[in-house]
């Protein structure tokens, strides 16, 4: 143990603490600047959303609640039906124009792909016709819009 080493150690400690606090303080300032320049509009909607959430949480005591109507098994069936119809439409379109089944993979994997399909589909369900928006995503995923809500569905039964 050498007194010079200790002194150097104290010096490094002083410098080190000074630098880490000053660098992170600068980051504090920059984050505030970011917030001021960017965040303004988002802030308002954000606060609103928190308020709404609180109300919803209070009206339904946790751990003892029923499943919501919109997401019951019927919805699963409706989504399945919509995707099936969508895939049939897609398959017929692709075949009509000689597009091979391999194409979507190719398109998805190469940079900037985008030959994924998107369509409005009319589904007969429970006696009435429902208009559903279906959009393909990679990996057997589908974005399904129905009744103002959007579901991401992983649907992997292929014929």
């Amino acid at each position, binding site marked *: 143990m050498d007194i010079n080493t200790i002194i150097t150690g104290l010096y490094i400690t002083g410098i080190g603490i000074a630098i880490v606090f000053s660098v992170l303080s600068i980051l504090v300032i920059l984050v505030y600047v970011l917030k001021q320049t960017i965040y303004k509009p988002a802030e308002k909607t954000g606060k609103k959303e928190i308020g709404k959430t609180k109300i919803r949480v209070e009206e339904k005591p946790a751990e003892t609640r029923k499943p919501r109507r919109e997401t019951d098994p019927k919805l699963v069936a409706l989504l399945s039906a919509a995707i099936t119809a969508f895939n049939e439409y897609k398959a017929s379109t692709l075949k009509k124009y000689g597009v091979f089944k391999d194409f979507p993979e*190719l398109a998805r994997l190469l*940079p900037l*792909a985008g030959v994924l399909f998107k369509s409005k589909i009319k589904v007969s369900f429970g006696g009435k016709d429902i208009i559903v928006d279906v959009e393909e995503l990679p990996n057997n995923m589908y974005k399904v819009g129905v009744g103002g809500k959007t579901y991401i569905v992983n649907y992997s039964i292929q014929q």
Partner: protein
Amino acid sequence: MVFEGLMHITLGNIVMICVGLILVYLAIKHEYEPLILLPIGITAVLVNLPLTGLTEPPYGFLYLVKHYLIDTEVVPLLIFFGLGAMTDFGPMIADPKSLLLGAAAQIGVFVALLTALLLGFNLKEAASIGIIGGADGPTTIYLTVKLAPHLLAATAVAAYSYMSLVPLIQPPIIKALTTREERRIRMKQLRPISKKEKILFPIVSMITVGLLVPSAAPLIGMIMIGNLFRESGVVERLSKAAREELMNIVTIFLGLGVGSTMRAETFLTYKTLLVLGLGVVAFAAATAGGVLFAKLMNLFSKEKINPMIGASGVSAVPMSARVVQRLAIEEDPENHLLMNAMGPNVAGVIGTAVVAGVFLSMLGG
């Protein structure tokens, strides 16, 4: 010791940091080839911060990436391997004359090469600049590393940027060179391809191109091995690894490695600006070459082809095929040319690899 970075920053560094940020912006906001341009852009920012040692031999991290993975051509060849495992040559096999359109688009490479020579670049530089017109990122990187490594960042950025700009660059040229009648030509649907043909094609083309243009064999060999993995159906584990795990990892290192060459000292020269300009010339000439050759073919053949698909000889898979599809539908909503355009599109990849091989054998490796 610390805070020194601030004192050593140059105007060049600041310019390059802005260039890097622009690439990042374009990648995120406009999705211009984000898989490549985002890593390149942010790495360009990082390497222009002074005194970090990241690009310094023998142990700077980005030096290691560049030296062991890019300079050895390991990364571009593995990307070609992965592209092979992703590519469906079916549309090209179904319509073999699309190979000729893929050859025709290479005219753009030579136009840009000659223009570069006129602007004072030497032969090796001009070849590396010309190949941008092939619109194949990995081929461009492969050739530039061998012929003109100091231009690597410029040619790579040009190649990938203009690939994103294909939807802007090609339509006016296509429209200027074709009549409305030509753009409305319908083409017959492609025949289905048997599995045997798909398996034999990569083998046959690897042997053929390898024998005729040996210096193209690494590129063609790797893409065709990848494609054989894909089409054989018996090594799905490897095919998936080639196009996913390995591809993703290798793409990360490609971005880091190329981005690390964008230091102000080497990048900020008038040559870089010329390269970027010549890149547009190359893409435009390639587009024109493909379209005009298609029109030439129509003079001699009974069954007319829609000359727009010649523009897809510019690889940029599958963007230029989609451009053609979009233009076709504009004129006639029932005229789907997507698959017909995919043939020249993938043929362009082979064509550009052949041209790269020719350059390597004539200009020394």
